[in-house]
């Protein structure tokens, strides 16, 4: 319902924004040539834009608040309801499988390549989901382990000719070790302290890679990283992209499988309990540090594997691929998708990675839109696009 009062409110909000954005949007200065341009039309469009935007914003905010009052806490998102229904689930999974099977053959290589990126993010997201979603540890330096994996493959290959397939397990172990090593001193820190320290680790590793020329070739990076070999057969450029595509699909499936199993295990229960209430958890005999450390190290393992795939796919890495924005993007995948829920993380990765790629048409504006979307999704769906519904352990009495 649009009432006079609301229109009046929107009008004043529009005025406020016109004043607010005046210096930065209307005046364009050039301090080199010492010129000033006034772009009065922006003022006008901005006013109109914010007027309607504020009407819509308030309308939806109102809607959300009303809904919250009636909603029960265990509302199950539609996707989950559909997926629990066998009649829907089986055809859906078949369709999904067919889609991903034929995808690289139907679409041009460019799209396959983008899809590979998105799928790597699915993997990273699921890995980070162990740390953030399940164990409740805010990790802003996840990219550190991604970096470790990528450089491990690149350097091992450069110096010792280690192949992709060997690099995969090696870097997984390396990731686990790094996770343990970095996690141990800091995991007793409280939530936000942990966030900033992990962020620090991420930056430290990147800066070291940038400055330690002898080791990592500095900002120039490492090129000519070979794609995975296929029984020694040369697949050509297109062929090897398709090959990597299927490797990533396999890795994603493996990730979903293992993460699902971890979640429904002694360890997974301990993570969730730890996230809910640390004190009670410890009092029930769970070793806080050890349990957190496993979550952290396992997350690192997946990041590291993702790094190997990334290096093999792009054939060139340099420290700029591992900035803090990368960590933030992965975190956004998890939170916007829906923390703790695998389907959510997958949806989050596809939306967040594919959307900006295809927004390249409006390349200039894509990060602006991206930032705005983050705010909008969080304001209207704070639990993420697809809220997590944990598969709880149901007890059924079976006579033995």
């Amino acid at each position, binding site marked *: 319902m649009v009432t006079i009062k609301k229109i009046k409110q929107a009008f004043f909000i529009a005025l406020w*924004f016109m*004043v*607010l*954005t005046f*210096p*930065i*949007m209307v*005046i*364009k*200065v*050039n*301090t*080199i040539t*010492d*010129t*000033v341009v006034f772009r009065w039309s922006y003022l006008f469009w901005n006013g109109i834009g914010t007027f309607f935007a504020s009407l819509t914003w308030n309308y939806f*905010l109102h809607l*959300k608040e009303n809904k919250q009052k009636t909603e029960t806490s265990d509302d199950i998102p539609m996707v989950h309801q559909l997926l629990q229904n066998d009649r829907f689930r089986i055809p859906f999974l078949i369709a999904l499988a067919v889609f991903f099977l034929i995808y690289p053959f139907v679409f041009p290589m460019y799209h396959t390549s983008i899809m590979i990126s998105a799928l790597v993010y699915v993997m990273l997201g699921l890995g980070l989901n162990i740390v*953030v979603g399940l164990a409740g540890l805010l990790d802003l330096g996840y990219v550190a382990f991604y970096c470790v994996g990528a450089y491990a493959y690149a350097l091992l290959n450069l110096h010792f000719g280690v192949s992709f397939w060997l690099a995969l397990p090696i870097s997984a172990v390396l990731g686990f070790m790094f996770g343990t090593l970095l996690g141990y*001193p*800091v995991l*007793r*820190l*409280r*939530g*936000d*302290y942990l*966030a*900033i*320290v992990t*962020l*620090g*680790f991420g*930056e*430290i590793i990147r*800066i*070291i890679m940038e*400055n330690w020329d002898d080791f990592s070739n500095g900002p120039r990076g490492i090129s000519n990283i070979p794609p995975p070999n296929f029984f020694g057969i040369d697949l050509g450029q297109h062929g090897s992209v398709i090959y990597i595509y299927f490797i990533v699909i396999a890795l994603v499936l493996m990730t979903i499988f293992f993460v699902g199993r971890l979640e429904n295990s002694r360890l997974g229960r301990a993570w969730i309990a730890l996230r809910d209430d640390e*004190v009670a958890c410890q009092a029930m005999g769970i070793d806080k540090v050890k349990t957190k450390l496993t979550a952290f190290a396992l997350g690192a393992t997946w990041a590291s594997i993702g790094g190997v795939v990334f290096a093999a796919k792009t054939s060139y890495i340099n420290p700029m691929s591992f900035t803090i924005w990368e960590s*933030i993007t992965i*975190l*956004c995948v998890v*939170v*916007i998708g829906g*923390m703790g829920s695998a389907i959510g993380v997958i949806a989050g990765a596809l939306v967040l990675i594919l959307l900006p790629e295809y927004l390249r048409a409006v390349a*200039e*504006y894509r*990060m*602006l839109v*991206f*930032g*705005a*979307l*983050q*705010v909008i999704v*969080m*304001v209207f769906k*704070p*639990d*993420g696009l697809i809220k997590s519904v944990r598969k709880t352990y149901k007890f059924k009495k079976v006579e033995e």
Partner: protein
Amino acid sequence: MRWIYITIGVAITGVLGFLGIREVVSDPVYFLELLLGGLTRGSIYALIALGYTMVYGIIQLINFAHGEIYMIGAMTALIVASVLGLWGWNAGVIAILAVVFAVVYSCAYGFTVEKIAYKPLRNAPRLSALISAIGMSLFLQNYVMLAQTPEFMPFRSLIPDFAFWEPYAHIMSSVELTIIVTTVIVMVLLGILIKFTRIGKAMRATAQDKVMAALLGINVNQVISTTFVVGSATAAIGGVLIACHVGQINFFIGFLAGLKAFIAAVLGGIGSIPGAVLGSLVLGISESFFTGYFWSEYEDVFAFSILVIILIFRPSGILGKHEAQKV
């Protein structure tokens, strides 16, 4: 275990102390330059860190967009100064107006950001608010970049070279002097605001216990808004000062400065205002010495390393209260 730590600590202090004394003796002017440079740096960190710490103290949110507010302050000052400069106004008037506009606009942005991106998320999971803050930060950066330019813009200093300071200017410039003096003044004013005014008391009460404060008739929303406004104002002052000091700005300056200031706030004990100031000075001065005597390319590594080391020994920061959680 404890003894190992203490031994290592003593050893490091000893070596650093020895090196330090040697350096002081061999080149006292350089040492003084670094010290004052560090003080300047620390003052700027402090002006930004205050906003982080105050917001965190009240709503336990890392206000990721705070660095952008600081950038917008500097940007507004640049725009106002350029326009007025073209109109041929007097330099003193320009400087004052530029600062006033920078502060007013930063406050307005801080206020608006809170209303849009954080207020609707008061009762949401904390991570959601953090992501919203990150989104806001990204949005503001790109907004300024698109509306102005991605390039660095020269920023003509608004602060003249003071004649009376001429004899000492080779050690510390007039701008640096202004930065330090301004910071001290801002801190004192802020201290008065928090200690003695009504709204200051309301802020402290809200930081202690939001529910209780609301029951006592404190308008919590208003307190939160005020906190954002005050934090934005100090950040804007920091933004203008640093722009005068460095001489150029772009849309991205808020990111690293914000990050460093946040580190400083955590270092001092987040939520504590004296902690933010102390943490900023510690970080600024030690960074200055580190880059001056060791490797400047590892400046940021050093900042994070200090943070990690201090948090390992004092998990709540230097001045943070280390209290046992009540069970």
